[in-house]
């Protein structure tokens, strides 16, 4: 066992939530080196986007990430709108904000179940998915679909909120708040969970900045970076919320950030539900063609900074669509933080980064 050997974790391995390979060089229980191999789910989304009308690209952006389709279609739609100079009504903006925050909660719940399973609490796998299902039920009620929503569109939304949404959403936020407090207590009170999470997979502030980490990973390392505060889009500047930040940069900090973000999302949803204007155009007719010019628009995805670079060519079909995925940036730090750790720490460390292979390979 003192000899060094390579262990291939993937493409079919419980560590990978998605299709990728982690090639780990180990000496016994010690990780000496790690290498990330990706490209198993490459679907040419950027290239297909160069041959489709801009409104037909949006279903593709849904398929970028299977746990937060809404946030990707939001980034794309808002980028297109900014390029065309379309201003969406306040009501549509509020609805978009509510939808995005619900999607953030659903995405973080998926992460919670994946992370706790990798640490060893298999019970959390099921109960976090149960709460996610309630959120998805609400989203399905609004959009008609559980995962591939196709709800946002340039100029507004495809349809208005259904009847009784406000009460349902309020009830859901209360239910979720109660349950999330319970789960936080279950995990925080567990000594073994702390043993597995604290001081595991540490990224210092400098490393996080230099390696290009985004989102909760960056915030867990002590950088208060959230595009909802830095470059407010939609109605985030009219709502009150905090950006959680931790300085320890370990798995536990990332866990705490995501749990805290779910509470902040609940806060945002409640405010938005109270302030949502009753009047407002849901769907304006957008221009048929994308104007000449380019745009770089970024939003705060559940995983970090998601961005679209779109070049218009005075045509319905964009000249180029470039996607910047936060999970890709975070994947790049993977081998850096695994080095020098233990084999048993690979699973929680990788899970704490929250990868989604759909948007990494595109």
């Amino acid at each position, binding site marked *: 066992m003192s000899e060094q050997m390579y*262990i291939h974790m993937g493409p079919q*391995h*419980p560590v990978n939530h998605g299709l990728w390979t982690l090639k780990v060089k180990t000496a016994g229980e010690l990780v000496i080196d790690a290498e990330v191999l990706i490209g198993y789910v490459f679907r040419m989304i950027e290239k297909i986007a160069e041959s489709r009308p801009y409104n037909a690209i949006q279903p593709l952006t849904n398929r970028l990430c299977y746990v937060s389709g809404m946030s990707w279609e939001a980034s794309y739609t808002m980028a297109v709108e900014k390029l065309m100079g379309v201003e969406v009504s306040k009501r549509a903006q509020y609805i978009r904000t509510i939808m995005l925050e619900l999607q953030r909660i659903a995405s973080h719940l998926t992460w919670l179940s994946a992370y706790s399973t990798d640490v060893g609490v298999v019970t959390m796998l099921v109960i976090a998915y149960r709460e996610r299902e309630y959120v998805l039920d609400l989203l399905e009620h609004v959009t008609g679909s559980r995962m591939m929503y196709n709800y946002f569109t340039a100029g507004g939304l495809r349809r208005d909120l259904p009847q009784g949404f406000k009460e349902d959403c309020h009830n859901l936020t209360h239910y979720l708040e109660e349950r999330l407090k319970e789960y936080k207590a279950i995990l925080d009170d567990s000594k073994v969970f702390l043993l597995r999470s604290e001081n595991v997979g540490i990224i210092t502030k400098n490393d996080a900045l230099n390696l290009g980490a985004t989102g909760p990973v960056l915030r867990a390392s002590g950088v208060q970076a959230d595009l909802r505060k830095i470059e407010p889009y939609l109605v985030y500047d009219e709502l009150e919320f905090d950006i959680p930040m931790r300085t320890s940069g370990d798995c536990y900090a990332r866990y705490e950030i995501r749990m805290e973000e779910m509470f902040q999302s609940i806060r945002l949803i409640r405010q938005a539900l109270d302030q949502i204007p009753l009047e407002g155009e849901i769907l304006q007719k957008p221009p048929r063609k994308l104007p000449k010019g380019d745009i770089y628009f970024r939003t705060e995805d559940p995983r970090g900074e998601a961005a679209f670079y779109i070049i218009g060519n005075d045509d319905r079909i964009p000249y180029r669509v470039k996607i910047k995925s936060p999970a890709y940036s975070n994947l790049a730090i993977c081998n850096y933080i695994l080095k020098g750790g233990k084999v048993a720490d690979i699973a*929680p460390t990788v899970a704490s980064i929250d990868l989604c292979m759909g948007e990494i390979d595109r």
Partner: protein
Amino acid sequence: MGYGLYDWLLDGWEWWPGIIPLLIEPLVPPEHIGPIRSFVIDSLEMTTILVFLIVNTILLIWLERKISSGRAWTARGPVFIDFNYGHFFGRTWKFGLLQNIAEFLKFFSKEDIVPEKADKFPFNVGFFAFVVAPPFILGALLPLGATLVIADPAVGFLLIFALFSLYPVGVLITGWSSNNKYSLIGGFRSAVQMISYEIPLMLSIASVVLVTNSFSFVEIAKQQATLLLPFAILMPIGFIIFMAALTAETERVPFDIPEAEAELVMGWRTELTGFRYMMSMATEYFILLIGAFIGVFLFWGGPYLPFNLFKHEIETIHLLAFLIILVKLWIFIFLYIWVRASLPRVRPDQLLDIGWKGLIPLAILNIIYIVLIMLYYPQFFGVVP
């Protein structure tokens, strides 16, 4: 010794099935008939305990699926089975009780794959000789009542732990010989776990032996009956150490690192398929059941109730003692299932930390506590100086 279930075979021939007396009486000299009778009785009693253990193992797996992967996961566990094997149990069954039998049959129908580059001899023989076989030898030592036991040797449960310790050896052999990196790491983790958890386990049992001066289950249970309270209350530290070390011994959460499925796929049993996989899983539960037996007799007073409740009845009515043991066994097992449903898994180095820096000093403290009491106030443990 024995359960006394088959004593009616001892004299006379009227209860023996048809042809046997006709064959034995003319052929066998009369002085050999007695040993043959006791041989038949012993075989029947061994079969009885084995059937009892296997049925309880199947029920234990069923209970685990009902509670840990059922109710705790907001599901219902197995509820019915669709029997595709000849429909001889009917299509459905209440509470999914037949689920495990259905799956045992399924595993036997699977292809048995031995990896091409595996070391064939240890892979085939080591697994069955060291993992599967040892627990089955233990049945004779387990009492099913106040005095009902097939064999009660002086070394008692020392023999049980000697056979228990073969399990990690088998795991290491299987993991190493299957020529798979995950299995290799899993096997070595099992060896590491053994060297750090056998010691606190034996030390916690040593405290019981110090007090009772015996290695026999029957004797230890009887002494706890005279103490009014079981050892779980009189020496709580020892009991907690025993529970923790037994969790590691049976490789269950939070100490299931040899098969940590998050990073090692299936750990040491990655290359086991079909009935080999089934046997490895069944053995794990079999060992848990035997561990529960040990725990119940060493720390929970065996068939006796606290404060000498119904002591005379328990000693005379065997069925009552048997039922009390059964209930205690299932409560003990339920604790383990509960822990599994709620705890994460520790890391190998943390496991060593807990073992060497936590449990062993605690176990030594426990022994010092026992020795001090035995020296200065032996009446506490019912010893008359």
